[in-house]
């Protein structure tokens, strides 16, 4: 008899209901952390460059396929691949911003939106052309392993993802608060002309920020792949969730993205539990629309 079955038998039915609620809550928090990591990249790019990166979802899909290929072709475990893919995606983001987005958009916001949309169309459909629309997953030995935390049984890869997200957010905060590059990023975000006058290479800082935002996606992809499936359209599902989180937390706010991610994860998990899967999705969109239409500065009122 499994540990789980014994645990369930030992509780009364009221306790059982509470347990299900509690485990949905915990699962929501765990999933929400990865959402937060995806949103973190988006909000950082928005906070500094003041652009909405429509290619964020497609880039995440690309990263997830990169993890898939690394595992299938080279036998690399996602938790090892993260150390190769993160710098690789930093370079990709840096190059995209510097070589494609900036020169193509002539500094016009509407153009930036269209160029990132173009990039997302290219990535998504190139993946479709190469991998077709089949859904794929990778098989790792720890994919279904669980941890016992109090009355709860939590998926080990999800707990790892949760802890790793907090660590990445902490590192990002340290980078922004303490390092010279971080100071330059914050200076450019606040006042780019002033920063340029102080000798900061604004184009370089923009590209670095875009690179960091893209690197966050590679980390998220490595954390997601042990438990998630990937197909060429998977990024769409994540990107609207990420937009919702960013809007909820306040555009450009890192703390807001973290809190927003956890809130959305819990909302999705609980509404999935009580209303079924497809309506749980609607819940996210409704939050998105209501916040955007009635409180565009976000719940925490951070200034964009």
């Amino acid at each position, binding site marked *: 008899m499994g540990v789980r079955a014994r645990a369930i038998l030992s509780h009364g039915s009221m306790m059982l209901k509470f347990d299900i609620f509690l485990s949905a809550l915990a699962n929501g928090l765990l999933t929400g952390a990865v959402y937060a990591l995806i949103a973190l990249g988006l909000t950082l790019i928005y906070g500094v460059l003041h*652009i*909405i990166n*429509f290619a964020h979802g497609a880039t995440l899909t690309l990263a997830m396929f990169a993890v898939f290929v690394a595992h299938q072709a080279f036998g690399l475990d996602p938790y090892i691949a993260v150390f190769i893919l993160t710098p690789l995606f930093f370079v990709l983001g840096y190059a995209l911003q510097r070589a*494609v987005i900036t*020169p*193509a*958009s*002539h500094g016009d*916001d*509407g*153009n930036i*939106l*269209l*160029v990132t*949309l*173009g*990039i*997302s*169309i*290219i990535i*998504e*459909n*190139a*993946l*479709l*052309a190469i991998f*077709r*629309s089949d859904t794929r997953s990778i098989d790792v030995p720890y994919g279904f392993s669980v941890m016992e935390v109090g009355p709860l049984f939590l998926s080990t890869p999800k707990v790892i993802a949760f802890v790793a997200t907090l660590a990445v957010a902490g590192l990002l905060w340290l980078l922004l608060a303490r390092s010279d590059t971080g100071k330059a990023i914050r200076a450019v975000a606040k006042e780019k002309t002033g920063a340029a006058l102080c000798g900061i290479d604004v184009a370089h800082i923009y590209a670095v920020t875009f690179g960091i935002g893209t690197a966050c996606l590679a980390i998220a992809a490595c954390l997601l792949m042990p438990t998630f499936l990937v197909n*060429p359209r998977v990024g*769409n599902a994540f990107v*609207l969730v990420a*937009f919702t989180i960013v*809007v909820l937390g306040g555009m450009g706010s890192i703390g807001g993205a973290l809190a927003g991610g956890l809130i959305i994860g819990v909302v999705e998990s609980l509404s999935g539990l009580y209303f079924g899967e*497809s*309506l749980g*999705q*609607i819940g996210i*969109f*409704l939050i*998105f*629309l209501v916040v*955007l*239409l*009635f409180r*565009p500065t976000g719940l925490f009122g951070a200034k964009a």
Partner: protein
Amino acid sequence: MKGGLFTSGYGPILIVVVALAVLPFGFSANTTLNFLGFVLIVTLAAQGWNLLAGYGGQFSFGHAAFFGMGAYGIALAQVRFGLNPWLALPLAIALGALTGTILGYLSFRARLRGSYFALVTLAFAEVFRILANASTFTGGAAGVLIPLRIDAANFQFADKRSFYWLALSFVAFVLLLTHWIARSRFGAYLVAVRENEDAARALGVDALAVKLKAITLSGGITAAAGCLYAQKFLYIDANLAFGPWISVEALLAPIIGGIGTVFGPLAGAVLLLGLGEITKTFFTWLLGGAVPGIDLVVFGVLLILCVAFAPRGVLGVLRRILPAFRGGRA
């Protein structure tokens, strides 16, 4: 300006429409007519987008919301309420226009601009897609099948040319409408809002009313394209009617053809879908099998190239190199 046929700008519209009208006499193959009919549907959807985004500067990433309202409107009116499709057509167009008004009222009143407006329209289209996919009234994931009853009185034509000419008359009407709007007071207000909304407001332009009028018209026009789509294929589901593909094509055609111009959406749709067919055929020949998504890769590249090198689209490039095209400018 003398107000003659050509100086008024109506001449080129007449020439283009007549040239398109005689096309089926030269190309009568079914596949060609199917292709041309599809080009006109995309043109019509793109004309709706162009009015709002090209003239009004409000970039929507979710025109599928209106397209789907038209398609589902005309299909469900027939299947659920037994209405004649010719009667359902104006109702479905009105539904699309109303959707535009509501969506516009919500987002413009909240002062959403630029990327925020793009995001809201995208989210609305996704909400509609999920709802249409889940609700039993809309046929759920199985979609809606319009019963085959070929009869002109039933909006189903035995001769593919009839459908083509009908679609062309819609496109021609919107060409004239767009040209007329561009020269009207409303059009001037719309362009003023696009160029600088705060300045326009300071000069007494009621920006909210102008944008609402534009999105209502835009929603109605794109819904008409959805109606034609439903009647052409007699089948729709949530991904066809509310899917991102039509949002993307409605936006790409005017940008590639020439954003904020009368002929931009038409020129862009012809070029885009023509290039799409060529790409698909080429890769099928090259690799010995269909490659899904390859045409969209080309569209994406084209979008970035246009934004980078041809901000006024293909027509803008032509106008720069061929002096003869300059005359057509309103």
